[in-house]
């Protein structure tokens, strides 16, 4: 058993000439960190913080190392161990980690956000458990993004619920227990049927090939299940991811969870945990079920669009600032869903980058809102006002982040949204045109909120709100730098994402007979019968 453990922890992942199991350590280090925190006696608050912070920082550094050593021309999986360690012999479950262009930046984002979340806010009570949970959460999230084994995907997908449940449940505000339970049960319910789905395809694969394996690559290449089964199982996956993302109409856990969660909780929830769902759509939707995905694509595009408009509309009228931001997440993730199921290289690339961008901008927004709450002890928009007078710097940062979330060109938020809509337009001009109105609404609810909170005469007893503290500035700065950088020069990110997207699209193309990627076709035509085709710009999947 010991040597098994050793194998698990320290075997080489191979891939690029690494002998050290980087990816495994991305999961193990936070895990050990959590144990470390648990072992430190209760009194030593600073030590808990330090241990958690160090673990997360090391993890972050290693994720950056992965980013730097990532081969940008290779669209396949990298850092993968050629023969992964077997976990459960009888079911062919293996500890099999890898990253590709799709997961890479999510891993980095995770490694980036957690240290900030730990530095950014101190818990109100019992810091020991707090830090233990939060750092444990990081391990889980990392696992989801990196594993290629359906079993472990499900495992991590489920296990992340627990730390988040406790973070919300015991460090949250208001009726936190309701929110936490709702979050837990709702999400678990969503993924319940997915497990059956996973097993179904695994065993159908076994029946066809005689090999029982949870290796997503093998399964995806094999496609050893009929279209009908594929579609049903796909639906079970979609349910799971839709709840996580969340997609309308299964989004209602999100406002409660985000609002009641402690600041760090909201940051991580919005920053990385929602991405578990969207990432799932990529790896376990499009890649695993190309046929079903293309078959359901229009429905999901429409759901995404509804999400965009619905989220915006709901956000506009919120009275609670944090809740407003939460609903804005619904809208933003609507974009990602739309882009995912438009299934064009542009929109897919856009979706992936949008995952990262949303993580940054909404994360930053939640930080700011959280700090504002710390200072004023209220989140009610009506009780705030004129803050820009007393805290111009605070307001300035808020403005920048807000504009990034509104999708102002030159800031990161724009690039993703634009590519998504562009690709979606190629796939289906009408849906895309409707979805594009989302950018208007985004401006409406955010600017209106900003006006009421920061502009006008200082209102209420919060006329002299404290300015940003240096520590908070330290947390915000890296995010802001990235927000600007990724807006001005997104190429480094896009060019690492794209190869994998091309591989994915090719995979879909060869596995779905009557489907070809919708492409921008040049309209060289004077007479009007080509016009329709011109307008519809190639709705391949319809």
């Amino acid at each position, binding site marked *: 058993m010991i040597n098994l453990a050793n194998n698990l922890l320290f075997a080489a992942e191979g891939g690029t000439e690494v002998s050290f199991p980087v990816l495994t350590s991305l999961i193990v280090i936070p895990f050990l960190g959590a144990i470390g925190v648990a072992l430190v006696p209760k009194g030593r608050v600073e030590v808990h913080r330090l241990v958690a912070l160090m673990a997360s920082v090391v993890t972050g550094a290693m994720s950056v190392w992965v980013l730097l050593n990532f081969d940008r021309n290779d669209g396949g999986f990298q850092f993968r161990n050629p023969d992964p360690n077997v976990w459960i012999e009888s079911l062919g479950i293996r500890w099999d980690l890898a990253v590709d262009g799709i997961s890479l930046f999510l891993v980095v984002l995770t490694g980036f956000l957690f240290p900030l979340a730990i530095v950014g806010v101190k818990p109100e009570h019992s810091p020991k458990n707090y830090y233990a949970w939060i750092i444990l959460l990081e391990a889980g999230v990392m696992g989801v993004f990196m594993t290629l084994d359906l079993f472990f995907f499900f495992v991590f997908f489920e296990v992340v619920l627990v730390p988040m449940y406790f973070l919300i449940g015991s460090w949250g505000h208001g009726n936190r227990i309701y929110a936490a339970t709702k979050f837990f049960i709702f999400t678990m319910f969503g993924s319940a049927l997915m497990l059956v789905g996973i097993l179904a395809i695994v065993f159908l694969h076994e029946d066809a090939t005689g090999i029982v394996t949870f290796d997503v690559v093998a399964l995806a290449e094999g496609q050893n299940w009929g279209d009908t089964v594929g579609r049903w199982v796909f639906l079970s996956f979609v349910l799971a991811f839709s709840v996580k993302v969340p997609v309308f109409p299964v989004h209602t856990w999100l406002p409660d969870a985000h609002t009641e969660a402690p600041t760090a909780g909201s940051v991580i929830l919005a920053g990385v945990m929602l991405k578990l769902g969207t990432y799932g759509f990529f790896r376990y939707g499009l890649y695993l079920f190309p046929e079903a995905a293309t078959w359901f694509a229009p429905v999901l595009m429409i759901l995404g669009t509804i999400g965009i408009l619905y989220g915006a509309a709901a956000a506009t009228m919120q009275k609670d600032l944090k809740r407003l931001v939460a609903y804005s997440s619904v809208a933003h993730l609507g974009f990602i869903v739309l882009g995912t199921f438009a299934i064009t290289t542009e929109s897919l690339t856009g979706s992936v980058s949008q995952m990262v961008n949303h993580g940054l901008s909404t994360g930053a927004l939640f930080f700011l809102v959280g700090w504002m709450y710390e200072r004023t002890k209220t989140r009610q928009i009506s009780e705030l006002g004129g803050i*820009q007078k007393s805290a111009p710097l605070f307001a300035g940062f808020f403005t920048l982040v807000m504009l990034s979330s509104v999708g102002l*060109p030159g800031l990161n938020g724009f690039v993703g949204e634009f*590519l998504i809509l562009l690709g979606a337009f*190629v796939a289906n001009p009408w849906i895309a045109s409707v979805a594009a109105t989302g950018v208007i609404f985004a401006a409406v609810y955010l*600017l209106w909120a900003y*006006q009421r909170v920061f502009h006008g005469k200082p209102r209420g007893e919060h006329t002299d709100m404290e300015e940003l503290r240096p520590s908070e500035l330290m947390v915000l700065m890296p995010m802001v730098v990235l927000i600007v950088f990724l807006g001005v020069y997104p190429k480094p990110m896009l060019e690492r994402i794209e190869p994998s997207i*091309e591989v994915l699209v090719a995979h879909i193309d060869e596995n779905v007979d009557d489907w070809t990627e919708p492409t921008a076709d040049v309209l060289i035509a004077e007479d009007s019968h080509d*016009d329709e085709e*011109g*307008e519809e710009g190639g709705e391949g999947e319809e």
Partner: protein
Amino acid sequence: MINFVYLIPLFPLLGCVTLMLVGKKMGEPSAGYFATAASGLSFIATVVTFFGLRALDVEERQVTKTLFEWVPAGNFSANAGFLVDPLSVAMLLFITGIGTLIHLYSVGYMHGDENFSKFFLYLNMFIFAMSILVLGDNLLLTFLGWEGVGACSYFLVSFWFSEEKNAMAGKKAFITNRVGDWGFMVATFLAFASIGSIDYLTINGTAAQLSTPVLAAMVLLLFVGVMGKSAQFPLYLWLPDAMAGPTPVSALIHAATMVTSGVYLLTRVNGLVYEALLHAQWVTNIIAWVGVGTAFFAATIAIAQTDIKKVLAYSTVSQLGYMVLAVGSGVFVAAIFHMITHAFFKALLFLGSGSVIHGMDNDQDMRRYGGLRKLLPITSATFIIGWLAIAGVPPFAGFWSKDEILLSAWELGGINGKLLWFFGLITALMTGFYMSRQVFLTFYGDYRFGDPDKDEVDQAWDGYIAHAEAEKDEAITAREAAATKLEEANVAVESRNVAFAKAQMEVTQTTSEDDLAKAQKALDTASGALEKAEAGVVSAQDELTAASALVDVKDQAVSSVKSEAARRVEPEPGEQRTAGAASDFLPDAVAKRAEHHPHESGWQMATPLVILAFLSIVGGVIQLPFTSEVHFLENWLEPALTFEHKFASSAGTKVALAVVAIIAGAVGIMAAVSVYLRNQGDPAKIEKQILFDGWGYDRAVTAFMGGPGAKMFDAITWLDANIVDGMVNGTGSLVRGTGSTVRRFQNGLVRSYAMSITLGSIGLLVWFVVRIAA
């Protein structure tokens, strides 16, 4: 030398970043001068680039300078690349030029503002964004600048954010523009989906191959964007509100540069528009009509405005309408020409108004101005030049450009063209009128800043009446007092009488001597008292009469004051509407104004005025209509335009049209002269409330947003909280309900348990029996 183009955006960017970091430290005024320098340098860079471009021969005057690949994805790619061609350079020349002037002006204007350096930070940021907008070699990069300037305008309009109104205006500007941006974005998508590229050169190159609907769609979508930025109907309504920003902002962003970028965009893709003109004229007609419609519509509103900046705002909308009309009739040169001249004189006018406002203690109500000619010599002189220019008086700049636009409309031919021309002409007439009105109200007539205006007079009279009535009430109370006093007196008499009678009885009934004497004495005292009391009654009587008399007097006073007030407030024709006797009751503001002494602004503000005035005079020379040699602008722009437009009309027609235009302008001015200078005819007849309210359009939109719009959003919010989430919680309680139902069967009785076992086994047996049967 072309490479200098990189410096154009670089300088303002550096300036902006520097101010961001150390602006506060620099403080006033050095931060301002620093920013001015940044903008000035980029102007110089532009000039250099201009000459660099001149140096090339005509065919090569379209150079693309790529910085880096900005957004690559799949088949899509957008560069951060600059398209240096006559068009962009021409734009940049006046943007950076005027920009610099306005920077300088602002140093004076923003004097003493607590966020002095922040203001210049934004100005530099704006110049940067604007230059990106102009230089971008593809739709996306232009869009970057497009939204960038939008953001800057948002910051600057709500610069004095403590005023709810300013904040509101800034938000309104941004959001309304966003509506337009939607069109821009979708147009970009369509361009990519149909052409596969969004570079201007490619677009203009392949425009001819596009199928008509796509072409039409693309142009119209872009035009939606233009409606937003260039404040065309129906999206214009953010611009008047945007005047909430500091005046230099209005001059730079909301008059000279940003708002014209819509027209610039259409010129940038003139290939498309031209194709539309050829194959889908209904599209260009829409553009032309929206243009002229806006021009006309805005002009009517401008007539009735009382806020000096509002007038200019609506006039800007109207002038933009002209440019759009020009684009719609396919004469881009005319559009650009008017854009440039307009930039000159409208910037001038705004800065002038700023100077006035500055001089008049931030009071923007023209009705209170008057006779400032002497008090603000430079301002007034330059302002008047600007007025002549916009009013289309030859040889000022505005005349030439406007004339060319009208001509191009005319040349569209057919009734359509004639109508466009006609409305253009009427607009010209109205322009002449309202601008003259503004000038006369502001600079001519006698100085009446100290005079109370309508409302204040009303207030005064109300105050007076109130005062009179107060006095009357006083008198009445006095009368009451007197009356009561009389009552008391009478009562006293009564009692005394009784006492006297008693005393008399005593006297008659006494027998013994000394008793009699005592009684006698008592009787005397009693009678004395009685007399005193009666005297009291008499005096009280007199008091009462006096009091009631006073009441009558006061009553008369009140009624007289009332009638007086009535007469003053609705004066007979000829009679002035003044506070008259009520002057003491005027609000303090009036007095404050009366004490105020207008002052001319410092050199930082004066210099730009003078320069711009000069440009407004001679601006026309860049495109003189006489011979093609003097079509400097046209010849210069020619490489940027995919086709060459030549006016077909004979010299005769041109002259005729020009004359008609001049006459129209003259008529407008004359009308104004008679009304506002000679006071013949009542202004109120012209300045209708509905015009003042801009035909109530703005209010209607706001009402809709606040009413049904908000209701709909509320409805969705309610739906989310109750229906969608309700289903979730419903499921939860359903589960619990089932649980407690099931629980009830567990009743603790062993026999019922046994029963359940038996039933279970029977069930199983039945099942297996069925198996056998099957």
